[in-house]
């Protein structure tokens, strides 16, 4: 399974929990807001993405299944 990962820029406040938990999937911009490095992680990285989303205090990260027939959100 692979997923789509997006960050809602209006919600992100730069807590940095995603970057701390999954530095291979998220990074910071110059002001300290989070950016997605790999927007379609697969395999074990799906868990990292889901963990980053679950730990975000702003609920700014969305992880959704890529398969269009299954639009259920993981988070």
């Amino acid at each position, binding site marked *: 399974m692979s997923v789509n990962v997006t960050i809602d820029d209006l919600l992100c406040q*730069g807590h940095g929990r995603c970057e701390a938990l999954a530095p291979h999937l998220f990074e*910071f911009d110059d*002001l*300290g807001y989070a950016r997605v490095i790999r927007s379609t992680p697969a395999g074990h990285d799906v868990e990292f993405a889901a*963990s980053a989303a679950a*730990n975000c*205090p702003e609920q700014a990260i969305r992880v959704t299944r890529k398969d269009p027939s299954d639009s259920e959100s993981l988070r």
Partner: protein
Amino acid sequence: MADVLDEAEPYRAPGVCPAGDRSSDDFDILDPDYLRNPYPTWDELRGTCPVAHSDRWGGSWLPTGFETVKEIARRPEDFSSRALEVTGPIPPVGKGLRVPPLSSDPPYHAAHRKLLMPLFTKSAVSSWETRIREIAVESLDRLDGRQEIDAATEYAGHVPMQVTLEMLGVRADDASALETMVDQLLRSGPRDLEQRERAARGLLDYFREVLSEPGCVEDRPDLLGHLLRLQAEDPSIDEERMLGMCFLLLVAGIDTTWAALSSSLLHLASHPADREQLVDDPRLIPAAVEEFLRAFAPVSNARVTTREVNIGGQDLPANERVILPLAAANRDPEAFDDPDQIKLDREPNNHIAFGLGIHRCLGSHLARLELRVALEEWLRRYPVFSLRADVTIEYWGGQVRGPANVPIAIGEVRR
């Protein structure tokens, strides 16, 4: 093992939320028993009146649920940050102590915050790790040979104070005078409003003097130099705003980190299994720091309603104080399983110890770094230690809550 704090006599606010009489919820945010163990009160309030009210100390509303606290933090238009103090009269609009960006509201807030954000990104503060470690080790060296240590005043207080002074670039000689003023502002200040006023004026006067010294110029390498460069680029930054930023950069990082580190060491001193786990595998420390932050979140800043609002099912009049007890939110069983249990590897842990929304703690990456490094060095030096049973632990509180003393008996020293 039960948390030592949980064994204390639970605090009961007299007449909490009696049906139909909103005027006498009557919790006392400065009561020593409440400060020692506020958790039963928060549990009770969450169940009976999720947005409680008290007339004490100038009057305040106290939401205790995770979602309610979050919603208030996310509605800065309705809940202004213009007066952050949790006690005393609410100053008229425009008359409170201005410490931008913390006290700034939209639409001014974004510009105020953007000025300081680059200074406190994770990568910007990471350059301080080596120096923070030196400060931690120096602090421990000064305790050499001691069998009994007050971890709060002799270690947890020293690290953030020293880091803050060096980052700002103020003289080490000024440490004790500044510490006294910060103490009067945040520890005795909530009950003694005159002293709080004096301390606030004293800190502003201190920075006015520092900034006007002949040697205080833009090319100095510290935070004061950065602020001077910002002012040179943007003359609209007047003296009041400069002094307010200096004030914030000094005050915000000292007692907060001090309290979080003291609480963490208190927990480890009374929970040997958790201590052993972190000693055996220091890679667990970053997750443990998050859990300590969740459970012992020290900060409760206030907001002021800008209009009549409804929050958590409660109607609030305009111009009323609402306290945001971040630790109460972090202990809400609706948001966290077994919230009173400290689980070092808690997952997920979407706590809000640093607040959220537009006022997310600007120094959170610095605080996390200091907490991690200070715990790493303490546990490296003292892998075995315990809480002394013969000393009572007192708490101070208000905007920042934490143990005033953490009496520790050292069991083993490693060098």
